[in-house]
């Protein structure tokens, strides 16, 4: 008998673990500070190697690195600034689109769904190019000229996928609230807006927070994309420094330094996300 020809249970289904958040990466992660230690050791070893290799050439690798480190760090701060702005803009737009996704009006709902899916499935870099090339460099409205410098366009370009992801997180969060909540609110004569604002969203908030933080970490890592479209960020500064010094043995320590900066910023966020997820899963 062919195995596909029966619908009788072959194996009893087991209870799935707590639902994986919309991010898909909510699995308990192996986290420990040992990683950071290994990371730092690797960095130190490569630096020491570069120092030894540079001995006949004069200036030590550490001196060069210390000279450039503040500049790279400034570039990194700019990345963080961009990530804040994009996240703020993306969250505001995403919340509006997300609420439109649960609208009662079919056209509104379907449009919002289509927009969300489209921007979620397009590559970030392509969307960034889209914003950089197709937005005007200035915007005239009612006689007022609003200038659009490159970094503002970059913020908008990065905010597009963020908005789509926030919209999806919001929809997932709202849908995860049991229908009984809606029905009992209805029975108590709450309007739909009141139900959403006073009953559903407060409950959904804690479920939406971890994926939202996860998204922020992804966005922070994606801000390096702006170096591709010609904005000075940490990655372009690193590259410029390496070209200026033209010392191949410095490449590995320099890039490791940059990786270390991002790691030091994103790793605590990942930890906090996990901690929140664990905490909320217990209650949910």
């Amino acid at each position, binding site marked *: 008998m062919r195995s596909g020809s029966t619908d009788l249970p072959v194996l*009893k289904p087991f209870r799935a673990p707590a639902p*994986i958040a919309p991010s898909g990466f909510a699995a308990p992660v192996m986290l420990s500070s040992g*990683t950071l230690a290994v990371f730092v050791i690797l960095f130190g070893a490569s630096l020491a190697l570069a120092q030894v290799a540079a001995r006949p050439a004069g200036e030590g690798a550490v001196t060069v690195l210390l000279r450039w480190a503040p500049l790279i760090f400034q570039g990194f701060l700019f990345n963080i600034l961009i990530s804040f702005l994009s996240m703020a803009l993306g969250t505001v737009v995403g919340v509006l689109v997300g609420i439109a996704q649960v609208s009662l009006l079919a056209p509104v709902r379907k449009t919002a769904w289509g927009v969300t899916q489209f921007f979620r499935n397009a590559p970030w870099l392509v969307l960034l190019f889209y914003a950089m090339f197709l937005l005007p460099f200035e915007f005239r409205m009612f006689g007022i000229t609003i200038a659009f410098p490159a970094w503002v366009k970059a913020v908008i370009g990065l905010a597009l996928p963020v908005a789509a992801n926030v919209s999806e997180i919001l929809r997932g969060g709202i849908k995860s609230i049991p229908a009984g909540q809606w029905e009992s609110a209805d029975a108590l004569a709450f309007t739909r807006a009141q139900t959403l604002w006073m009953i559903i969203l407060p409950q959904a908030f804690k479920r939406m927070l971890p994926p939202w933080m996860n998204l922020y970490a992804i966005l922070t*890592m994606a801000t390096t994309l702006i170096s*591709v479209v010609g904005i000075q960020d940490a990655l372009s500064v690193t*590259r410029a420094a390496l070209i200026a010094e033209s010392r191949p043995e410095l490449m590995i320590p320099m890039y490791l330094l940059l990786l270390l900066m991002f790691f030091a910023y994103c790793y605590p966020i990942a930890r906090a996300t996990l901690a929140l997820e664990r905490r909320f899963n217990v209650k949910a």
Partner: protein
Amino acid sequence: MIASFFQWLNDTQGLNFSVFYDAFDRSRFLTGLWTTTYICVVSIIASMALGLIGVWLAGGSSRLGRLVVRVYVQFFRNTPPLVQLSFFYFAVASLLPTVSDGFGGQSPLVSGTGWAIIAFSLFAGAFNVEIFRAGIEAVPSTTVEAAESLGYTRLQLYLHVVLPLAFRICLPALNNNLINLVKTTTLAYAIGVPELLYAASQIWSEVFNVREMMNVLLVTYVGLVAVLVWIMGRWERSMRIPGYST
């Protein structure tokens, strides 16, 4: 006929979709599409292999193996893929020897495409380790214990009991990650790999049809993702155990 339609669109409406009527642009675009597909397919396979190896080591008895996997996963999850790619392409490649290309010149041991594949496989592999681990943890311990009491070795246990079940559980998350991988391949643009985005940017800088090419590009990527989703959907259905759903 399609060519003449787009020729007409260009002449009358000023919408220049040169990839549809200009043979040179089309071949460049298709080459880019092929390169992107190639990078995607190889990286998907390699990242899943990495995920399996990682999860095997993470569940193993060797402390060193567990540490290596942990460092690997956290390093690649918490640093920007673009910097990882630059790190490999510029820094690591400078350590490797060059090989003679047969025409008297020297070419690097690993090409840009090669580094892109390596970097993306490692990046997506780190996520796959996590995903597979979540799937394996969801397999009930009673099933594992039953198999152990029947004398299964660890490899047999994984091959015949744990992985077939875990795979079905983690497919949605795996789907997500592989889609992400397809989107990440655009980063290869930054190191000059002639993939889809690179080909498109060459076309729009020569033909000056940024707006049209952008839209073609977006639709192509959404199409690529759709193909992947369709394949994964087929796979998921073909692996379905009758009467078994979570």
